[in-house]
């Protein structure tokens, strides 16, 4: 397992040196999921990886937005016919479309965010994230901060890259209960039945508001929306109610930074460093070390993390921070299993 923080910079340097003047000819193309490139969250973070690579590696970046699920195949195909050195598709839902395109174009390098193929497809590098590790920390800290003893979460669609957040969040809170003898409950997700609260779309911001209101009405004072831009609707409710009544846990990016209009409602964020994995994939494609397989982002290598508390730091007691650091160390060294 490599470390993003430690290895990225030298890789970039090497790649830039090797590629030399040809660097500008290297084109990285991206196909977004629905929700748009500027969703302050999922698509935007992945695109940031291309922007980073543009800056540090001198590649050229292009993107196509999918307005609907019917656009996936068309968007990928229109890029296949162009001259992309690597095509990066963003999102679990593009899994089938990417697989088909890769089979039809065995010489084209592909990479997909949030999907791992089994068996491995030689020209697709899947990027997956152990987000439950970071979400576990978020659930743990939220359980320590809540005043009502009720946490809430809801998802976009009931698919693994979404529910893995909810799994971690739920189990982190349960772990807090077990450690501290509390009885914090988590609404909106049941890891046993695999059922919970889902908006079934990634577009309707008003759903985000309604779902957060629903959880708030049931007593939740900290909610984690796992639905891309839909969560921004939840933020507007939290902003209206005030952080004392409702706080949010952001996902994908550090929403304190990417949603500055509502930054004061975010307790923390479960960050999924798609930017890091995307630039790593581009770097690999440039220096010729690209091969099909899986790239896993973990707490250990920085591929996933818990964002700083920023303005909320005073709400997190020092004792809780200490415990959190211990849990983090436990997850990294394997003594705490986030999967159960």
């Amino acid at each position, binding site marked *: 397992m490599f470390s993003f923080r430690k290895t990225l910079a030298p890789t970039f340097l090497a790649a830039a040196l090797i590629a030399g003047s040809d660097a500008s000819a290297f084109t990285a193309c991206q196909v977004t999921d*629905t*929700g*748009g*490139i*500027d*969703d302050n969250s999922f698509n*935007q973070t992945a695109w940031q990886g291309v922007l980073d690579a543009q800056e540090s590696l001198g590649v050229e970046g292009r993107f196509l*937005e999918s*307005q609907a699920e019917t656009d996936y195949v068309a968007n990928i195909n229109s890029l296949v016919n162009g001259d992309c050195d690597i095509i990066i598709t963003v999102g679990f839902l593009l899994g089938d479309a990417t697989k088909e395109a890769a089979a039809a174009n065995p010489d084209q390098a592909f990479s997909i965010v949030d999907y791992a193929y089994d068996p491995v497809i030689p020209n697709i590098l899947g990027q997956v994230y152990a987000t439950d590790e970071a979400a576990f920390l978020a659930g743990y800290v939220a359980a320590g901060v809540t005043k*009502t003893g009720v946490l809430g979460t809801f998802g976009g669609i*009931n698919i693994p890259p979404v529910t893995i957040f909810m799994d971690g969040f739920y189990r982190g809170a349960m772990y807090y209960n077990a450690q501290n003898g509390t009885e914090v409950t988590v*609404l*909106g997700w*049941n890891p046993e*039945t695999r*059922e*919970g*609260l*889902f908006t*079934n*779309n990634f*577009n*309707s*911001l*008003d*759903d*985000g*508001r*309604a*779902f957060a*209101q*629903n*959880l708030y*009405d*049931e*007593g939740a004072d900290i909610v984690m929306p796992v639905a891309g*831009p839909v969560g*921004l*609707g939840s933020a*507007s409710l939290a*902003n*209206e109610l005030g952080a004392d*009544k409702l706080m949010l846990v952001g996902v994908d990016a550090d929403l304190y930074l990417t949603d*500055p*209009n509502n930054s004061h409602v975010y307790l923390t964020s479960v960050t999924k460093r798609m930017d890091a994995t995307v630039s790593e994939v581009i770097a690999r494609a440039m220096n010729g070390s690209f091969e099909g397989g899986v790239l896993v982002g973990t707490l250990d290598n920085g591929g996933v993390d818990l964002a700083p508390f920023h303005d909320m730091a005073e709400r997190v007691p020092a004792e809780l921070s200490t415990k959190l650091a211990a849990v983090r160390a436990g997850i990294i060294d394997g003594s705490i299993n986030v999967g159960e």
Partner: protein
Amino acid sequence: MTSTPISGPVAQKGKKLDTTKVRQAHVTGWILLGLAVLAAVVFGAGSEGTATFRLSRPNDPWALPDLLIPAAAFNYLVAAVLAFLGVRQFLRGGLRWTSLSLGLGMALAVAAFLVWATAGKGFSLTGMLQATVVAAVPITLGGLAGVLSERVGVVNIAIEGMLLAGAFTGALLGSLVGGIGGLVAAVVIGGMFGFILAALVVTYRVDQIIAGVVINLFVLGVTSYVSSQVYSEHRFLNNAPIFSPIRIPVLADLPVLGPMLFQQNLFVYGAIVMVAVATYYLFHTRMGLRARSVGEHPRAADTLGINVYRTRYINVTVAGMVAGFGGAWFTLGSVGRFDENMTNGLGYIGLAAMIFGRWHPVGALMAALIFGFANSLQQKLALLNTPIPSEFLAMAPYIATIVLVAGVVGRARAPAADGEAYVKE
């Protein structure tokens, strides 16, 4: 259970109508009896403990005791009432109450289902009902826009685009000049698209469906482009104020009804007022009568001296303004920012509400409320850990709308000249 077409001599007409009615009553009776069995066997026998419906919320200033319902007993009672209503359909004199009984029966069955799902647990009933009203707002306004334009014979597929345009404009102007300015601008833009639609279909006689789809795609494309290219760089353009709830004195303090109806924002009150005004306009004024005659038989209206083109222009433009107001709800009434395709097809749901509401403003409001209720019910059920998969719960709003409308509303008839261009001779 559709009615047989009425034909033949006038003498037979009355008799045929009667047999149709009797058959409808019998079908309704069987449905009610089926629901009674369902309520008794599944919901009654399958429930244990007490269902708790919280009437006030943890942070409410006043507190009302929770509504505690013994689940099994309640559901057996519902089953008995359903059975009574069902049997009545087979007796003499039951005919007059067929639709009402079916409506009541459906409501009771939903209540029994809810009690069954909640048995041993609890949730905030007030919160659910308030969410119902909020969720119904954009659908009502979309449906109302549909009613206004289809009543003059213009099929308005463009509601979705008008909503999206209103949402976009509301966010942009709301960020720059404040909420009221944003709202006015959204209404103006909605009206502008209404006018464009009218120009395309009335003056240029473009196919009405195609014209509507063109507007939808155009608005989606432009707003998505600006959102991704401009808003992501200049966030201050997409940070609109949200209209805060207006408490209506005294009424707002009523338990349950207060939070539902009297602590809402401008858009909720606006939607209710607009439905009332539109109903009065269409069915109680001379202008409304003229508008409807244009939708039913434009040639006849024309010969009577009604300016068909102008009537269509005016009504479709006003419909656009209503949709623009509805669109502003998404940004100024809900989340304070615009995001790509944030209306997510609610315009089409509004169109469906219009059809289910039989091209009547109040009907559209009712259909929207049913949809909103099923939608918020679905959210509560997901929290209650019912054994029903979430995908099925997500279908609930659509299924509820279809069932209720097909069963209770019966056959709906569109304005006769709906979708037809009128060529003045």
